[in-house]
């Protein structure tokens, strides 16, 4: 289980995450929604330590990080390794082929031997349906294909938690659909997944739990149906705005 307790994050004077506490259950899919600037990305980025929270505790299956103390670099790194991140803008390495993108982490960070890494990467390429693109460079791939490679790159690290930050926002609906389809499949498997999205029909389909973030606080959480049935004015307003 991923336990977040009283997490605070400031950017200068801007108090972006306010005492966030949240339990994310293993093998479940959690969807984070909320209006722009509410702190969804920041929360996700705190979970894999792309941002360092100012205070609070994150506990992943017994490994505890207390941000009110200074955390050594190597502790941070080994924590980050256990999470995988998929970005809105893919962020594939443009000087590496699809295959090289996927094996980069396993070879460089996990110190796997190259042959094993390639075998596993080929398996992942099949998994995301892009076996024939192994030697293509990112700029030779469509946005949807790039994002699927980016997902394979994250999966190659065998992360315990998979984080998606608006994985289809940079894609037109058709290409987005192939990525959403893939994420949907992953959510049925044993992955622990956290997704930030504005796509509510997708949220309804994949989520075990939906978390509504507003101005750096968790305003509500529950199953999709719970949330829509809450008749919370702010949530209803938000949802109607998206339709």
């Amino acid at each position, binding site marked *: 289980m991923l336990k977040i307790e009283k997490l605070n994050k400031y950017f200068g004077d801007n108090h972006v995450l306010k005492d966030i506490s949240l339990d994310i259950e293993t093998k479940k899919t959690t969807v984070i929604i909320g209006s722009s600037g509410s702190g969804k990305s920041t929360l996700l980025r705190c979970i*894999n330590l*792309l941002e360092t929270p100012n205070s609070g505790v994150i506990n992943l299956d017994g490994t505890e990080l207390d941000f009110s103390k200074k955390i050594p*670099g190597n502790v941070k*790194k*080994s924590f*980050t*390794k256990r*999470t*995988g*991140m998929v*970005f809105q*803008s893919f*962020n*594939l*390495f*443009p*000087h590496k082929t699809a295959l090289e993108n996927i094996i*980069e*982490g396993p070879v*460089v*960070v996990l110190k796997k031997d190259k042959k094993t890494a390639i075998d596993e990467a080929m398996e992942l390429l099949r998994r995301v349906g892009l076996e024939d693109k192994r030697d293509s460079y990112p*700029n030779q791939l469509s946005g949807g294909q790039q994002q699927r490679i980016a997902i394979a*790159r*994250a999966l190659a*690290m065998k992360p315990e938690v998979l984080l998606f930050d608006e994985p289809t926002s940079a894609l037109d609906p058709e290409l987005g659909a192939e990525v959403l389809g893939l994420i949907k499949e992953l959510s049925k498997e044993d992955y622990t997944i956290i997704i930030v999205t504005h796509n509510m029909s997708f949220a309804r389909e994949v989520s075990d739990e939906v978390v509504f973030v507003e101005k750096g606080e968790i305003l509500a959480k529950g199953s999709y149906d719970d949330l829509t049935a809450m008749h919370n004015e702010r949530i209803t307003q938000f949802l109607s705005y998206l339709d």
Partner: protein
Amino acid sequence: MDARAIEILTESFWPILKAGLCYTIPLTLIAFVLGTLLAALVAIVRVSKVPVLNKICELYVWIIRGTPLLVQLFLVFFGLPKVGIVIEPMPAGIMVFSISIGAYSSEIFRAAILSIPKGQWEAAMALGMSYPQQLIRIILPQAFKIALPPLFNSFISLVKDTSLAANITIPEMLLTTQRITARNYEPLLMYIEVGFIYLLFCTVLNFVQTKMEERLMLTPDEKKKIQKINDAQA
């Protein structure tokens, strides 16, 4: 053109070209290689904000870019002997030109590194890479591709700038020309000739540069970044 002019030009052509092959080109090449290595180190120190060293590098770039190259040459060659440091002309030239390239090209590298989107650092970090791994495996290969064309420009400039070394008695092309002129009193012919040889060198290099840029297969985005760096250098 009369026969005497042709004779003067043909007689002096080989000695000047030889000075180019024996001094101008080696001086340029060695200083460029050393200077570029220095530049890369300085850029990495500055981008990584290494404490103390970062400030020293900043100071170094500020001083070198803010003073004339000729003054630097004079300082090292004529000034340092006053405090007992006597350096032979060629080593002095290599040193000053390397230090100069180190400062100017560090700005090229730095701009190239800073032009790589933040998302590249983040993607590398998210894989759990250490800072040196992020830099060496992900950022520098991309930055180097962008830095290459501007670096080549500074190489071409250096070929011409080495003519300043005539002032510290390195017998490169300009000093050789001056010496021949002192004998034949034909400054107009002689400086046209040496100018022509420099032009020849630079034209060849420009050709090589064009070929190299074709082979780099730059994306429009990379071209834009390169343009920006070139503009900032000019």
